[in-house]
């Protein structure tokens, strides 16, 4: 199912909706501050209803402890931009790593977090394994340490080439 998503491209112009989108979209994720909520794909839309800016937000994981902090930060950003604001939590369709934008993926890599991998050209893929590339040295000679990392959305890897441990943003 392809969900239509609001993006800067569809929210340009000088109207209130565009201003509200810009204010909300710039909020960084509190646990992964190198990406904004828009780049992460969790800010689904911003609408104006009866003069109130409504930000539609989809959590990454059911138990993500950052959900409340994210919602408050978006609300505060909208208030700062001069809007009365509220948050609408949207559970369906469920968030997927496919919604992370290209800029978001690149920002994750630059920050030292391997972005989610969908396909793989590695021959290991033939054996059901995916090759995660080290975000520091680029080697694909990496090893999974734990399926669970420092936050719910990440797994823990180590690079066998440069010996650095790193986080991998899990593909869901």
């Amino acid at each position, binding site marked *: 199912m392809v969900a239509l998503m609001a993006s800067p491209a569809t929210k340009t112009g000088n109207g209130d909706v565009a201003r509200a989108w810009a204010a909300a979209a710039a909020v960084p994720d509190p646990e992964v501050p190198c990406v904004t909520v828009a780049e992460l794909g969790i800010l689904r839309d911003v609408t104006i209803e009866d003069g109130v800016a409504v930000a539609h937000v989809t959590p990454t*994981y059911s138990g*993500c402890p950052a959900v409340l902090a994210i919602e408050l930060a978006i609300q505060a950003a909208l208030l700062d931009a001069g809007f009365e604001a509220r948050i609408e939590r949207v559970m369906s369709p469920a968030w997927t790593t496919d919604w992370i934008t290209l800029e978001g993926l690149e920002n994750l890599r630059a920050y030292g977090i391997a972005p989610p991998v969908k396909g793989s050209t590695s021959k290991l893929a033939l054996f059901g394994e995916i090759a995660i590339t080290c975000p520091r040295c680029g080697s694909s000679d990496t090893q999974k340490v734990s*399926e*669970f990392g420092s936050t719910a959305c990440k797994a823990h890897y180590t690079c066998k080439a440069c010996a650095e441990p790193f986080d991998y943003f899990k593909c869901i």
Partner: protein
Amino acid sequence: MTGSAVLHLPLFDAVLQLADDHLILGHRVSEWCGHAPMLEEDLGLANMALDLLGQSRALYAYAADIEGAGRSEDDLAFLRLERQYRNCLLVERPNGDFAHTIVRQLYFAAFMHPFWQWLSANSADETLRGIAGKAQKEMAYHVRHAGEWVVRLGDGTEESAIRMQAAIDALHHYTDELFQGSPAMTACAQDGVLPDVETLRPAWSATITDVFGQGLLEIPDVAHSQTGGRIGEHGEEMGHILAELQYMQRTYPNLQW
């Protein structure tokens, strides 16, 4: 049954029961935080506990909506009496050693994974479909993670194999309750909102048989199934869980963070 208010009660009961399963198991797993056998597993268990608590929050919030009586998700989670909790007995079983915890996790996750899959694809209830869309992915992780440990420890050392089999022998007779419907579940199944849980048994059995087979572990013959949680009859341990879980709200009523 007349009137829409009456017709909605089975859905409230069924969602609440589902929420109780997740809250109590989430609380149990969270007890490992800081005590797991190694750091990576500490993170893993805490992450799984968070998944379960997150799922229970969404379910309690929905139950509160359905009831429409002004109770919040916190009221439902923290301010009921022991007999009013409808979680199955399996999830309240003590953590025991790591073998008990991981076998309990596999038994539950192997049941909930096909449960959420069914909901996500088939449920007539839009809110539950939404919760299930997320939860089914999280439960797939739980099945894989718990399954890997069961295989590694079952086919491990003499000591680990003995402990795994002991955990299975201690917990297996609690698993039948997962497939025991309640009047509320049956009513919701007839409405196409929830699956008929008995139809999930083949998927559950296939997972358990496969994992235990790889771990060289045996499924015990169970002469008598232990049940009662679905009608509020819990083991002694449930009181201890609630004492800890409800301490803050009972000591300082209406406390807010």
